């Protein structure tokens, strides 16, 4: 099919076998790539035994999937997915970087990893030469060291094997830090020091498979497309739109740390106890003055360049390097922990990325622990002597390290906020779930719903098939502007949301048609691939297991904290409305074709030709 390289790479780590596979053309037509295609493959292979599949066991599959847009649409992203150790469903998590472009140039549309290696390995791909190499030298190293060592080794290999080519550029890499190696559930798959596929906890999945890294170098051309001239013209349009987006080019998401607190009252502060602050020392101009060393940086081909490089140049935390930090990390490793200075925020962000964490998930765990300390539920003795007061940066840094290496209390907190709340609650004999701000085991992104001024909607987290994922929120009506169906297209095609602000709603389908020569429309996606993926992901989420299963009647709801009134700020007293959420959830069930228990009906699944999903869902219905 046009727009695709034509083959997928399947790697079985248990038997160290590597083979190329092709998928039926209907699958590619229906599911495009990325998140949707991975959902299809995952469900076809594992849905019949889904509840028994341990996400951190060898049966789980791990996908690295670019989409047909990768390499053509400005700014490339790759989807990393599998069975999530956080939600026990499937979470499509995307990461920026050149990985997808290199992989497609190497002649693959994606990588499917299964099994578990005996000892640490990394996967090295140079066009059709695929090799599993010993990773004993890089195992245990942090993100920055791993990146450097992999660069050296891969370039040495390439120079040895292809001596007459000249100096090799660095290959694209996805790797995990110590957190992933220790199978810590908030771990992320990291690229380029500080980019991460965070939601879902796929760093832990990679660690459980003893796969330290994947490095790809592709020298071929990108797959052939249907209408190159039209694509060139459309790329220009996207670029021009992005160049006009002055706000994003100038500040990235770095302005959020102040404005989401002061203007929209939706920033997590002290583990969501408040959502408003007016700390002007946390303003974006302070970040620019104090820590930004490079005002514009971007991934390959991205015209928005919302990234900035930050470095603390003096003082106690000198030498900490990270990108921007973006709003989510500004919030979760800043106000969420009672930290209100740029230097400390950059230090924590840099540390968390070095350890291989998802900043949102680990920020939420740290905030959760600090709130328990504030309420006297966790004592200094429980925390191995750490005084976890709000704003005590060094204590938070120590706790993050403990979590990454599973030492002491860190072993418990390494299970993620939701599971830690359950386990600690048992130990302490208290219900700690009200302090865990999660949606289906995944800590919600830094966009609260209580003030109603942010883009997050009442049922955004409650009904999403990816739990608390703020990039995959949903809203009524299901064919409306805020619906999750369109997010699924973005994650499947794959394009970055930040380059698509200027384009119209039909532009992306035209772009897809120009690449593949198909005839897809907005409506076609709504009743076809988009809806199918939604149902598959919903089914997988409900099947859950083995440790936790979700009950839609209880768990299709916002975290309890969102029903407490806001204590401060212009939106003081505002809170989520439980009744209205309930009604909206019911309405959403209706529109999505789910019964009153939130389970996709046989009728819906049969019309979508997903009988095999229906068969597995049978055990939930009775």
């Amino acid at each position, binding site marked *: 099919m046009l727009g695709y390289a034509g083959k997928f790479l399947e790697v079985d780590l248990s038997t160290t076998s590597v083979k190329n596979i092709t998928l039926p053309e209907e699958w590619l037509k229906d599911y495009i790539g990325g998140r949707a295609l991975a959902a299809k493959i995952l469900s076809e292979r594992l849905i019949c035994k889904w509840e028994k599949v341990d996400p951190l066991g060898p049966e789980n599959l791990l996908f690295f999937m670019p989409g047909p847009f990768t390499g053509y649409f400005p700014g490339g992203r790759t989807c990393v997915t599998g069975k999530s150790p956080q939600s026990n469903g499937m979470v499509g998590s995307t990461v920026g970087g050149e990985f997808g472009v290199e992989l497609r140039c190497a002649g693959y549309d994606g990588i499917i990893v299964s099994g578990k290696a005996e000892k640490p390995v990394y996967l090295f791909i140079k066009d059709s030469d695929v090799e599993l190499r010993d990773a004993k030298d890089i195992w245990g190293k942090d993100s920055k060291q791993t990146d450097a060592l992999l660069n050296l080794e891969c370039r040495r290999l390439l120079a040895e094997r292809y001596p007459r080519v000249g100096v090799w550029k660095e290959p694209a890499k996805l790797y995990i830090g110590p957190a992933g190696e220790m199978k810590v559930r908030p771990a992320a798959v990291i690229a380029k020091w500080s980019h991460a596929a965070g939601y879902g906890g796929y760093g832990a999945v990679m660690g459980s498979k003893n796969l330290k890294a994947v490095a790809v170098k592709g020298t071929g051309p990108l797959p052939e497309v249907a209408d190159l001239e039209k694509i060139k013209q459309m790329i220009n349009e996207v670029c021009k739109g992005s160049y006009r987006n002055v706000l994003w080019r100038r500040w990235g998401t770095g*302005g959020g740390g102040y404005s989401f607190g002061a203007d929209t009252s939706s920033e997590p502060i002290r583990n969501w106890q408040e959502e408003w602050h007016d700390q*002007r020392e946390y303003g974006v101009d302070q970040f620019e*003055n104090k820590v930004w060393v490079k005002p514009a940086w971007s991934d390959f081909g991205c015209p928005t360049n919302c990234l900035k490089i930050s470095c603390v140049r*003096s003082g106690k935390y000198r030498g900490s390097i990270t990108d921007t930090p973006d709003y989510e990390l500004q919030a979760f490793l800043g106000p969420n922990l009672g930290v209100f200075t740029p230097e400390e925020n950059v230090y924590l962000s840099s540390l968390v990325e070095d350890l291989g964490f998802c900043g949102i998930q680990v920020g939420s765990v740290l905030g959760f622990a600090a709130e328990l300390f504030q309420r006297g539920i966790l004592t200094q003795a429980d925390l191995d002597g750490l005084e976890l007061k709000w704003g005590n940066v060094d204590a938070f840094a120590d706790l993050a390290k403990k979590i990454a290496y599973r030492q002491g209390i860190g072993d418990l907190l390494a299970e993620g906020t939701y599971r830690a709340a359950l386990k600690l609650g048992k130990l302490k004999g208290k219900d700690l779930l009200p302090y865990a701000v999660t949606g289906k085991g995944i800590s919600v992104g830094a966009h609260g719903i209580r003030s109603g001024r942010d883009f997050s909607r009442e049922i955004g987290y409650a009904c999403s098939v990816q739990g608390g994922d703020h990039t995959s929120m949903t809203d009524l009506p299901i064919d409306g502007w805020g619906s999750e169906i369109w997010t699924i297209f973005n994650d499947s095609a794959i394009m970055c949301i930040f380059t698509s602000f200027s384009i119209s709603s039909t532009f992306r389908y035209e772009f897809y048609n120009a690449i593949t020569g198909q005839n897809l429309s907005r409506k076609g996606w709504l009743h076809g691939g988009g809806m199918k993926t939604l149902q598959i992901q919903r089914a997988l989420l409900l099947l859950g297991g083995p440790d936790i299963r979700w009950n839609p009647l209880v768990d299709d709801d916002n975290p309890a904290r969102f029903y407490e009134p806001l204590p401060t700020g212009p939106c003081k007293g505002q809170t989520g409305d439980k009744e209205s959420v309930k009604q909206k959830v019911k309405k959403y069930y209706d529109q999505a074709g789910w019964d009153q228990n939130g389970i996709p009906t046989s009728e819906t699944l049969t019309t979508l030709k997903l009988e095999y999903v229906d068969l597995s869902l049978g055990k939930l219905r009775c």
Partner: protein
Amino acid sequence: MLIPGAEFPHLCAQCEDYPCVDACSSKALSVNKKTGAVTADAEKCTGCGDCIDVCPGKVPHVHPKTKTILICDLCGGDPQCAKVCQEGGWNCLRVVERGDEDFKLYSRAPEETARNLAIKTYGEKAEELL
């Protein structure tokens, strides 16, 4: 000039929430809807200085002779300072569109801005001196 070399203009930033207008007890201050600038009514102003206290950047000041408040009114939408600065090629002041940025962040007291600028320019040495 608080620190040699760290010079900067100290101007009204037109905060989104206009704390000065809220604080004025004699209703002498109002917001120009077209330009967003704060305009002072000299006849109503009592010169109490409440607006100076609430301003995050301490921008307004009392005229020494008339004892009424002075706040930048953006010259009715065409600020002459920015014009001259652009003419001179300094490119330090320019007129920007009002977007989604937080303008309140630019309203800072001169001591704070000078400190930030000095640290940015001179690095660690300035931190020791300040």
